[in-house]
């Protein structure tokens, strides 16, 4: 290349808006990671579009110096679908929260995944409604005390990745707000995936659900409470990389084993990102008995709705007629 294209930096993706998250909010870290990631992505800045619903997390677009749309509660996937259908050149990101994406927005989330619309969906899961001051959400653990559940919530929570898989998602991954490198890697993969990519980001809300992800975030504990899954690699974890996941193929269940002379890494389950059954098992692993899986859990190539819709329209357009021809088509008669 002889022409000099000025390379963009993180700063080019920051806006002049005062950031309105609480001090210590996990959203800051995610924002930073995303801003840093942007210059390295294939798409140009003017083709990046961030769409969100309503919630603390959904303020995200205001802080990204790209095109952005802070819409209405729960509907971002629907708007994103419209944007993508209108202009498939755009690279569309949906930023949502556990309330926005899975409470009020559950239906659109389900359908954007099923249709495999080519957008990236980043779910900031803090297991709480932050913006409305801390009510429990559909991902809150049973017993969560909140202003709307003073005696503790009784609703069983849902698992975002499991639901996404159930809805037919073709890309499912999980990462952690403050794990910049890991998060960045996962989001980059999501960006590259053609179709809907779903990324659950465990996000700490220091105000209303502080510490719920402590086990997987705390430098001392994390090694024992999370496992990084990687395609083709055995599922090893633990501070001394001394534990692993095995499949009990009779019971069709996973189990945690200690590595030892008799149990070598070779006997562990090897991650296969194309296996949905495995993905379902991994995505629902949870503490304290199991480590939480982070990384790219599942990926599959499938028809993308927007591509196919465009193709169909293009096909029809080949035999295009003019508006006048349309008006004159079919049965007409002349009055003189």
């Amino acid at each position, binding site marked *: 290349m002889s022409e000099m294209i000025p390379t963009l930096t993180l700063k080019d993706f920051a806006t002049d*808006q005062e950031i309105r998250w609480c001090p210590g909010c996990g959203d800051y870290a995610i924002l930073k990671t995303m801003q840093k990631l942007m210059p390295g992505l294939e798409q140009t800045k003017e083709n990046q579009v961030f769409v969100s619903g309503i919630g603390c997390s959904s303020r995200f677009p*205001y802080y990204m110096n790209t095109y952005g*749309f802070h819409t209405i509660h729960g509907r971002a996937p*629907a708007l994103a679908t*419209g944007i993508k259908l209108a202009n498939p050149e755009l690279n569309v990101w949906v930023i949502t929260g556990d309330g926005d994406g899975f409470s009020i927005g559950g239906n659109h989330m389900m359908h954007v995944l099923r249709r495999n619309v080519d957008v990236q969906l980043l779910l900031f899961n803090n297991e709480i409604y932050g913006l409305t001051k801390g009510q429990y959400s559909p991902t809150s653990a049973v017993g969560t005390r909140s202003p709307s559940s003073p005696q503790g919530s009784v609703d069983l929570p849902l698992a975002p990745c499991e639901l996404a898989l159930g809805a037919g998602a073709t890309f499912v991954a999980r990462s952690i707000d403050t794990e910049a490198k890991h998060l960045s890697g996962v989001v980059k993969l999501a960006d590259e995936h053609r179709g809907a990519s779903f990324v659950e980001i465990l996000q700490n809300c220091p105000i209303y659900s502080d510490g719920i992800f402590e086990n997987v975030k705390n430098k001392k504990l994390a090694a024992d409470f999370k496992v990084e899954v990687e395609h083709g690699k055995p599922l090893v974890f633990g501070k001394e990389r001394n534990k692993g996941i095995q499949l009990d193929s009779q019971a069709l269940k996973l189990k945690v084993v200690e590595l030892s002379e008799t149990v070598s890494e070779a006997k562990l389950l090897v991650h296969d990102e194309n296996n949905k059954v495995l993905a379902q098992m991994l995505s629902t692993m949870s503490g304290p008995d199991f480590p939480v899986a982070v990384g790219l859990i599942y990926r599959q190539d499938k028809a993308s709705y927007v591509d196919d819709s465009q193709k169909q*329209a293009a096909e029809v357009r080949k035999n295009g007629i003019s*508006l006048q021809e349309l008006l004159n088509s079919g049965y007409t008669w002349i009055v003189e």
Partner: protein
Amino acid sequence: MELVEEKLGEHHLDEKHVVDVVVRFAGDSGDGMQLTGSAFTQVTALYGNDLSTFPDFPAEIRAPVGATFGVSAFQIYFGAEDVTTPGDEVDVLVAMNPAALVTNITSLVDGGLVIVDSGAFTAKNLHKAKYESNPLEDGSLDPFRVLDIDISKQVLAAVEPFGLGHKDGLRCKNMWTLGLVIWLFDRDRKPTIESLEQKFASKPEIAKANVAALNAGHAYGETAELPVGIHLYKIPKAHVPAGTYRNMTGATALAWGLIAGGELADIDLLFASYPITPASNLLHELANRKEFRINTFQAEDEIAAVCAAVGASFAGTLGVTSSAGPGIALKSEGIALAAATELPLVIVNTQRGGPSTGLPTKTEQSDFNIALYGRHGDAPMPVLAAATPCDCFEVAIEAVRLATKYMTPVMLLSDGYLANASEPWKIPDVSTLQDFPVNFHDEAEGFKPSLRNDETLARVWAKPGTPGLEHRLGGIERSYDSGDISYDPENHQRMTDLRQAKIAGISSDIPLQEVVLGETTGKLAVVGWGSTFGAIHQAVKRARLEGLEVSHIQVRYLSPLPPNLGNLLAGFDTVLVPEMNTGQFINLLRAEYLIEAEGLSKVSGQPFKIGEILAAIHKEYELMGENP
């Protein structure tokens, strides 16, 4: 349609001077009545009559054979004068079975002609229609002239040579009947024969059988000895302007109007919708028209549909969404987002009987209120109403124009009646349509999303993908100056005032309100909106023929109202406002102009009859102490 102001008397078919006729074909869902009606419409248009048609489908998908709730009907009103409704009462009723007879006979005028297939009047069918005795025999049809023919038998004989089975043979009954009716009104059956041959090109035997049946029915009329007073009628041709015509339903006209609007605005359209009666036709029609600059998206629900449309508009493609009743209610939050972010959006509301699920297949105008006032907060937007099937074309173009020019959602009101009714349409020359190309902003220098046109007050439309115009929109109140979020009280007042002024300002960009018929001042103005046009028009015409000082005003722009409407109405002693709701538009007129308007409300799921409006005109006249 041209307005011929000639004396129109009450008429029956046995009068000398028959200028127009209402024919209704009714039969079982499987009897092909819609096809029959369409074919008759075709030959009638070609003959040179003005006409208006309305199909009357059963609410059920496919009812059991012979059931009253499975009766499908098609009504056509045609004549030598301008025809604007499918007619109040029926002059000729074709009833293919007892169920069709029992459900339709009440609309036949005394002395009207009823043609029945006596072969279908079996005990079983009579029972299904809940007849206790055979109406062909018990004298209950005495007020009418009855032509009872064993059509089934006639048909089977006619198609015998083509080797069809009994069942397939009977399928030709409708063509036999059509042949007879074509004879009755002296139309040319060639176009029908041609269509049949085209339609059944791959099944020549079927084509031949149908043609044979058609001819046989025609021949029957020519040769059989018919009861007294039944003979061939000659309805004079209408004086319609020269041009190429086609038949148009409101739904198709609306769909094509949207396509035309997109072309005139020089933009792509995304039509995002979720099926619902009676709005789905629009989705169906447009899904079939992707060769134009339009794509369709069948969303998971109405909320997703309106949101996808708003998303498309954000991305620089005009989002259009469409629904009816419950679906319109669901779109309210999404529409408000478009209003707040000042993005263009067209919402087509094909009104149906309410409230709640209401009467999905019936017509009503009861969404005026939700159209004007159905959003939280102060979120004004233009609302337009189409008056006739063909008017849908123009109004759709106008909705696209206003949405893109003023960066605003626009609601277009149609209804179940308009969507399905049809009338001849003089095909316009596309090159004469006024275009209004959209200018996307592309100048990065000094750009901010709050830039607006001084004159229209429209916000700038900056398309994602344009370098240097990166910006954020959202539903939180935004600074007038920068477009950033603003919680400032004065700014909120300013933006609220701005939104109001922008929409109010449109009133200077729309035509002045005209009087459709009559003087611009007088004793009584009948003021309608939407699909009441046809009935009001005929009623006012008749009243004027009686010598009454009545004028007809039909309002297309419901919000903002035309600037001269208040003065216009002030020129009349009394204002009568017929509406197919409990009186919604009239409240706006009263609030706006403080006039003592009188409402005429009909909420039965049925369009107004001409006679109903005429009666109300008479009543108003009496109240004014005048003798009508």
